[in-house]
């Protein structure tokens, strides 16, 4: 289980994440939602150890991750929001390097990489440099790299970004499959329909604070709203969207 207790992050005194507490259980898919700038990616980065928390503690399986960060990193798979990759390497070289960095046994890792590339339709482009890859292809490389070592905790930050429909469907099923096999899956997405179908539990963030942390069913009941989109709009969207769109159209016409 992944647990965040009163986690905060401040940048130059400005809170990006403010006293966030929630847990993501094994066997469940936890959706982490929020508008742009609400602190989702910052939270993900704190969990992976890319940035340090200003306050609070993060636990995995009951142990603070800082106590054994090395051991924790061995059990985490992370797909970042932006697909920053070493573009001079080919897709195959990048994944082989990831396998070597994680000290995975060479032969099974190569077979695993080959299988992942085939299943994600990247096999024919495995020797091309990543600089020539489309956004979706880079996303697939990131996904492969995140799953290569069979992690216990999988963090996906906007994983559907740039993926075509078929791969999106595969990924959706994959997320559920991974959770069914006892992984802890935490993923953030702006595609609320997908979140509604895949997740059993959601955490909604707004201005760095948790405004909802419950199963989708309970949220529907509590708020008497039929869809996650309406729940999200009520909790995290401050603007009158119709009014804003009218104002934008008027502005550009002027």
């Amino acid at each position: 289980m992944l647990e965040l207790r009163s986690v905060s992050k401040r940048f130059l005194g400005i809170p990006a994440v403010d006293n966030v507490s929630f847990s993501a259980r094994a066997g469940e898919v936890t959706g982490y939602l929020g508008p742009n700038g609400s602190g989702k990616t910052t939270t993900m980065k704190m969990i992976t150890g890319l940035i340090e928390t200003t306050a609070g503690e993060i636990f995995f399986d009951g142990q603070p991750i800082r106590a054994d960060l090395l051991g924790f990193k061995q059990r985490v798979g992370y797909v970042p929001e932006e697909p920053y990759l070493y573009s001079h390497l080919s897709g195959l070289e990048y994944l082989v390097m990831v396998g070597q960095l994680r000290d995975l046994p060479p032969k099974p890792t190569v077979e695993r990489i080959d299988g992942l590339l085939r299943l994600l339709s990247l096999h024919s482009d495995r020797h091309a440099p990543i600089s020539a890859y489309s956004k979706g292809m880079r996303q697939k490389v990131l996904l492969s790299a995140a799953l290569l070592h069979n992690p216990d905790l999988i963090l996906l930050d906007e994983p559907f970004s740039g993926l075509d429909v078929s791969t999106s469907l595969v990924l959706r099923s994959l997320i559920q499959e991974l959770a069914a096999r006892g992984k802890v899956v935490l993923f953030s997405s702006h595609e609320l329909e997908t979140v509604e179908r895949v997740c059993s539990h959601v955490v909604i963030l707004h201005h760095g604070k948790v405004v909802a942390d419950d199963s989708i069913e309970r949220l529907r009941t509590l708020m008497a709203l039929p869809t996650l989109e309406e729940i999200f709009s009520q909790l995290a969207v401050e603007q009158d969207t119709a009014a804003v769109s009218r104002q934008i159209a008027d502005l550009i016409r002027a």
Partner: protein
Amino acid sequence: MNTFQQFRVLYRQFLFRLMDVELLSASAGGDASALLGQFGALLIFGSLLLSLGAFGISYLTTEPGLSREAVAAVVWSEENFMVSVTMLVVGVFALLSWDATFLDRRDVLVLAPLPIRGPTLCAAKIAAAASALGLTVAAWNSLAGFAWPIALAPHGAGVVCTMRLVAAFWITFLVAGTFLYCAVLGVQAVAAQLPRRWYLRVSSVLQIAALVLFFGVFFFQPSLANAKALGAPENQRALAWLPSYWFMGLLSEVSGTYAAEGHVVMAPLALRAVVSLGVAIFVAGGAFLLSYLRTLRKIAEEPDIVPGSRGGIWLPRFGNSPQTALAQFVIRTLLRSRRHRAVLAFYLGGGCAIVAVYLEGGGIHETWMDIVGRVNGLILVASVLMLCAAWLGTRTVFSLPLDLLANWLFRITPAPRSVDCLSAVRRALLALAVLPVWVATAALLLWFWPWTPAAQHLLLLGMLGSLLVDISLRGFRKIPFTCSYLPGKSKAHMLFWFGIIPLVIAIHKLVGLELRAMANPLSYWAMAAALAAAAFAARKLTNASANRSGPEIQVEESASAELVGLGLGRYP
């Protein structure tokens, strides 16, 4: 649509982007103007050093014992030197800004959808490049461009005559710089007519070839700066290939200082300078315009980085898996990054030039085959100098990042032990810097020399390489190419370039000891043991330093404190 305003905005963007902001740390805030300022300050400092020589020449030319011909020869020689140096600086600038001449993929994707005409983009790029070129020439000659004309002005020349000479210098520098820049641009523009993938492959070769050519011509060109040599028929063929003499002729004609005795030989050279400038501008302009408009679309469709071969580069293992991953990453990155290869080529070119000057000075009465064909100190010194240049250049480029934002991978994967990381970097540095020089030296020596002295030197050369590698990796807690870079922190390579003459002398003396030791087995093995002990000690100290510094890998360069120790022996 205000085309001029578009041009102005684009011009400013392109001018400041001639400096690669990816090299800057996030904490520098992408302040390219600060980097430009440092670059300008470096050139001005170089100009200051250059202008110091003017005082000596000024004294020399006023010596009463010197004949007019001797004074003219000295003056012409110095004028040729000034023109050659300016052309060399412009040539290096042109090569370092090779990739900036055309739009890159990001520019095309951002700018192409906007209502900006291709000619406006093209004009802004050319204007930015021309401004940068002008600033480079101006900064480099900011002090020397006044000190030297004043020093070289004829004895008793008035203010007007001296001012005319100053103006002639500046006109010549700008014209010579423009010629060389247009020549490089022309070569690049002609190459750009090729399919884009071929162009990407060929351009790196052209860059390195041009760098070797510039340094080679600068150091190798014969000294013809006197009336007899310039007018001699047997030298006319050589003069046809030495542009610095053409512009020296232009300088003499424009200044009119030596009209009486120099006009006959200088006028044809000046005419050649003007004609060659016109041809260079015409060819460069035409080919550039043609290729620019054609390449805009190609750039958007093709990757900027040279595509790898179908099977990738095969590399051996370098220890355990994490060590292999790091070492292979380092080697692949250097082999595939044009920018890093260009910087490395600069150091290698400098090393070649220093070796060439040393060999030329040491074997002045011998042919190349005579020098190579016998056991002698010249070749031994040359091999050590090339080793130093390769080591210094490779170690320097290790500090320059590539795809900095992608280093998150190394931050979230379990970091290898610091000793393992250091070991991987050490092996990569040995493979990239020491091994090629060692192999080339081995091929040369084992072919031409008896095997005993060849093997003796190769053993010492290998141990020296290992020693240098460990010295330069002390305190190194980074994975090459993955840490941000703050300019101005590195002091060791500045020390090297300013200490090159004492270094060459020291190597010369040590090679002398080596040669004597080669004849005496006891002395040789004592020398080898001492070098082995030094290499072993350096290895131990470097490993101990890595263990003390802890497991965390450094990914962000830290700014210096306000009070900074000199630390001349430290690398970033």
